[in-house]
């Protein structure tokens, strides 16, 4: 097979994998700390893409752009504003969801918050339908989709490189935060043993809220990426993306942030690889077959550890 073609497909899988990984991190962080499969998380990503739409159309209306921005300085400013707004808004939405839908049920049987999570997913979808309508909408693609570096036959788009780099930077920042800071230590200790952490003076409620904020902000960032890369969104995209990201989190070892990132890229790789070998009609079946195989032989996922000390 032509090396230019393989390089192109490599970039494709890294780009889509980056989006899955960003969403998967939120699943895995929330599961790690309160053992809840947050089914509304895919829809947080979806709402993030609509917040992006609103930010970009508002900025576009005042600054006068409706597509690719050629001035690099303006592009940088608009990108930073869009990411900050989308991540902050979705972070707050995540905290509110936790405060009102999950915290009251924290000591309830495991099934109760699971159902509330599914309920939150539908609520978010309906709210978006009411505010932005049920039709697919176009998001202005402010990074020129045609701009690319040519390497042989392959044309590597700056847009793809930006998305991959952004995802990697956010993941490293998350690792540093969780491993090096006081709040990160509070998060890790809460995940290991909530009661013990509380006895050591960790504010459990704030720590869990912070986890939701960070996870949802990352999903918000993925929402911006959705707009930049596909230039399109619709209120139903959350379910499919959420399912893939959840799979990525389980594949990598749920509760493990490095595993979630790895799982995201792995799912992107499997999808693209199944297209390359000519089985794109089967890509979903292949993804889930591999998931089943991994779980049969390694029930905790690729990087998962035994969670023995849980009561």
């Amino acid at each position, binding site marked *: 097979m032509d090396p230019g073609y393989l390089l192109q497909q490599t970039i494709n899988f890294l780009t889509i994998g980056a989006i899955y990984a960003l969403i998967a991190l939120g699943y895995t962080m929330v599961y790690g700390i309160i053992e809840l499969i947050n089914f509304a998380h895919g829809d947080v990503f979806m709402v993030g893409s609509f917040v992006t739409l609103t930010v970009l159309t508002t900025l576009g209306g005042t600054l006068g752009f409706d597509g690719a921005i050629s001035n690099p300085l303006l592009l940088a400013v608009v990108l930073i504003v869009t990411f900050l707004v989308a991540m902050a808004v979705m972070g707050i939405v995540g905290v509110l969801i936790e405060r009102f839908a999950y915290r009251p049920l924290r000591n309830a049987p495991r099934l109760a918050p699971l159902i509330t999570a599914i309920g939150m997913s539908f609520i978010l979808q309906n709210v978006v339908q009411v505010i932005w309508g049920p039709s*697919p909408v176009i998001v202005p693609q402010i990074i020129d989709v045609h701009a690319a570096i040519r390497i042989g036959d392959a044309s590597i788009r700056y847009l793809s490189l930006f998305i991959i780099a952004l995802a990697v930077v956010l993941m490293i920042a998350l690792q540093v935060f969780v491993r090096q800071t006081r709040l990160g230590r509070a998060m890790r200790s809460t995940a290991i043993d909530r009661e013990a952490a509380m006895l050591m003076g960790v504010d459990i409620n704030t720590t869990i809220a912070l986890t939701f904020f960070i996870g949802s902000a990352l999903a918000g960032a993925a929402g911006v990426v959705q707009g930049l890369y596909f230039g399109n969104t619709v209120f139903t995209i959350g379910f499919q993306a959420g399912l893939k990201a959840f799979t990525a989190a389980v594949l990598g070892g749920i509760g493990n942030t490095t595993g979630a990132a790895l799982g995201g890229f792995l799912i992107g790789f499997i999808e*693209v690889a199944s297209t390359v070998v000519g089985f794109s009609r089967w890509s979903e079946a292949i993804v889930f077959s591999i998931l089943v195989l991994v779980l049969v032989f390694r029930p905790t996922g690729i990087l998962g550890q035994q969670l023995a000390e849980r009561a």
Partner: protein
Amino acid sequence: MRVLRLGAVITTAALVFTACSSSPSASGGGGGNVQEVKIGVDLPLSGGETPNGGPTLNGVKLAVSKISVPGYHVTVEAEDDAVNGVHDPNQGAKNIQTLVNDSAVFAVVGPFNSSVAKAEIPVSNSAGLIQCSPANTNPSLTKPDQGAKDLRKTNPDKIAYVRVATTDDIQGAAGADIAYNVAGAKSSYVVDDTETYGKGLADVFVDQFQKLGGTLVGRDGAGKNVTDYTSLLTAAKAKNPGFVYFGGVTATGGGLLRKQMISNGMGSIPFGGGDGINDGSAATASSFLNLAGPDGDMNSYSTVAAIHDIPNPDQFKADYKAMFNVDPGAYSASAYACTQIFLEALGKVGPDREKVRAYVTDTTHKYNTALGTLSFDANGDTSQHIISYYKFDPSTKDWAFFKQKDFGSSGS
């Protein structure tokens, strides 16, 4: 407490009053012996499907307002088969059951999508309620050699489904004709949405394109949940196709596919599809041209499985515009024609479902409709085998009709 009781009295009084005042008007509303009857409609009317269902429903409404049948007051009962903005066969089956249960409904216009029709035909067939689709094109819905008998098992010889759109064995051939003869492509890459309509159309395209002498360089499928076509398109680009054909509709990915072709540097490769992507101008929300992003170099073709040069186009357009203040959609005149046929039957045999069904499906009847004179064959397929060809016009950012071709009896 007192206030509350008073309120209750007033409410009760009001209810009694409304009940009294409404009952005489209901029986005397039409002024004597006018019977209330309904034409049922099942179309996708919400979300991304609005550009399909909306103008089609308007065609029915226009016909009902223009044509009066002495002795009957006809109203339109419309059901929406879109769920979350995309047509849904299960919803269609529920809707047709609702219409069957409404005894005032004597005939049904719809559905729009072939996958929905597959779920509806068994229901309307066993109930003996006639359906006329303005837009279904999948051959398996009517043709016994393609499995249509399985859909009408209850009454295999009493068909209750007719259509004024011609079939995909003709539409797919028209797509191949465009690719090979109009765009001059000698090779093509074909993608379908894995659904009844899309895959069927794509299969015919492939077959006909190869018959014309073209080469198929690749074939792929991606369901409606797919949003990322990048890797599929990278694979297609490596094969250097002269034409990309999409079997499917806008809501199952047509717009996204073309948009991503353009952003992946494949915009100069001509692109074609069937009536599923011919759903209005770039200004129409959720239409193919809107979602694909109307770049100047967007070299796209589409077809419509209906006659374009209708007998009185100006009159139809003017009437439609007077009522709805917009131009008609691709299937407005077809829906008008279905309604015309039903109203003719109502005038001749009355609203009895079996009589209407027998009248409409009589192969000897010739109908004068907005589409011209047509009749139905024993399977319920129209005698008109005409496909209209469209190309994207960058100046109007809309589909521009450039040719219609009569495929005669070649398809059947």
